[in-house]
């Protein structure tokens, strides 16, 4: 079996003005899988659920999610482009959520499944751990990935986003 290799394709860090979205565009089709790793905090008072857009599309998404919050567990499903729970300003200062988005076979001619694994960070009883299986019912190769905080919030300064390509050969 070939050894998968991780290549960093792009990075960005949100500046002092905040950002309403972060987009990775012109993603090359030369890899097997894609991974986005992100450290996210928003300027919303509450913890928001993020949003994802692929190739500019926010439709034909569905998901199933498992969530633990420090006191109970729950599962959810939906047909939106929602992602996972993000740190808001109500969480401990200067703490960020850790996200990983994994897109296997992103250039295939099949519908695209992807997963989102995330945790919020908070020096308190309540913090969220989310694991979500997502489906984008679209057969186009993924060429752009956009992430937004949800609501009309902004990503806070020092939120970081990294895009990696994985090659299996």
């Amino acid at each position, binding site marked *: 079996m070939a050894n998968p290799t991780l290549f960093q*394709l*792009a*990075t*960005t860090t*949100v*500046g002092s*003005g*905040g*950002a*309403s*979205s*972060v*987009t*990775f*565009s*012109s*993603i*090359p089709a030369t890899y097997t899988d894609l991974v986005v790793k992100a450290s996210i905090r928003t*300027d919303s008072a509450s913890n*928001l*659920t993020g*949003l994802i857009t692929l190739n500019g599309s*926010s439709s034909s998404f569905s998901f199933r999610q498992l969530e633990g919050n420090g006191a*109970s567990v*729950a599962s*959810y499903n*939906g047909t*939106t482009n*929602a992602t996972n729970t993000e740190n808001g300003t109500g969480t401990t200062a200067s703490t960020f959520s850790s996200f990983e988005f994994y897109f296997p076979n992103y250039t295939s001619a099949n519908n695209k499944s992807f997963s989102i694994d995330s945790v919020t960070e908070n020096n308190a009883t309540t913090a969220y751990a989310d694991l979500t299986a997502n489906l984008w019912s679209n057969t186009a190769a993924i060429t752009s990935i956009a992430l*937004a905080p*949800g*609501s*009309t919030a*902004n990503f*806070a300064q020092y939120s970081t*986003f990294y*895009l990696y390509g994985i090659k299996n050969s």
Partner: protein
Amino acid sequence: MTDTPIAIEVDCSTGIATERPLTADEIAARDAAAAQAEADAKAKAEADAAQAAQLAATNAKLMALGLTQADIDALLKAAKA
């Protein structure tokens, strides 16, 4: 944070990150997404509340049968194992 929403776009073919203000269409789409997110959050909270209420009701039924809270906790622990 500034009043004008800023979008960051990183072109993977060049590695160049560009910051620009949102267009009117993007702001409208953002507002629509916000409304959807609010509805999702509400549905999520309602699902959580319903689950908690069902758990409390089940607990009360078991206690009415004569079980103690320790008995119920032991049953739940065994069921999870």
